[in-house]
């Protein structure tokens, strides 16, 4: 399992056909999403809603691809990915509730898009689990 792939992408690399497909599709969708956001910034404001919708669709596609990828793994790899996802989910809930409380208390607003910062947390947890089993 490639360490760089685990820490940077939260996957076990491109050795398997499923891993390769997952990486290729996600890279294409991410590239299109970034291009769309870039072009969207140049468009008038009414089009920004469409850009936001397309961004959401792109992220949803990546989520579905992630699910398909995890489903294609063998039982140990599947277990490691699911444990890392579950761990990140619990942190997400705790963080979202804390930030929500903070927002209510002091009126501080945080863009939910920043929750993407939890991806490295998932990757780090995956790395820790891989070290435990391999």
């Amino acid at each position, binding site marked *: *399992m490639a360490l760089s792939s685990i820490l940077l992408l939260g996957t*076990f690399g491109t050795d398997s056909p499923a891993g390769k497909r997952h990486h290729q599709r996600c890279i294409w969708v991410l590239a299109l999403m970034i291009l769309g956001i870039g072009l969207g910034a140049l468009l008038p404001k009414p089009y920004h809603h469409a850009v936001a919708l397309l961004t959401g669709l792109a992220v949803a596609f990546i989520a579905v691809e992630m699910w398909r990828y995890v489903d294609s*793994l063998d*039982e*140990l*790899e599947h277990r490691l990915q699911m444990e890392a996802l579950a761990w990140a989910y619990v942190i997400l809930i705790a963080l979202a509730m804390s930030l929500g409380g903070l927002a209510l208390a002091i009126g501080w607003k945080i863009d939910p898009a920043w929750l993407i910062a939890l991806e490295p947390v998932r990757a780090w947890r995956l790395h820790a689990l*891989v070290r*435990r*089993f*391999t």
Partner: protein
Amino acid sequence: MTYCLRVLRAEPQWSQADLAEKLGLSRQTINAIETGRYDPSLPLAFQLAEAFGLRIDEIFNPREGAKTQ
């Protein structure tokens, strides 16, 4: 659980990668099973036994060095 996969692999001269490919697993999973870090599921245990043409209890011994996850 204790396993004798390494010994069993030696006879047909299969590497971990060979066995992993036969069973549709990653090499790391075979390594984790061999080193006792991971106890396979029952279906996978049957698959492993079948790959070597043995019974499941000839590969996996629950009495020695019992380990739970």
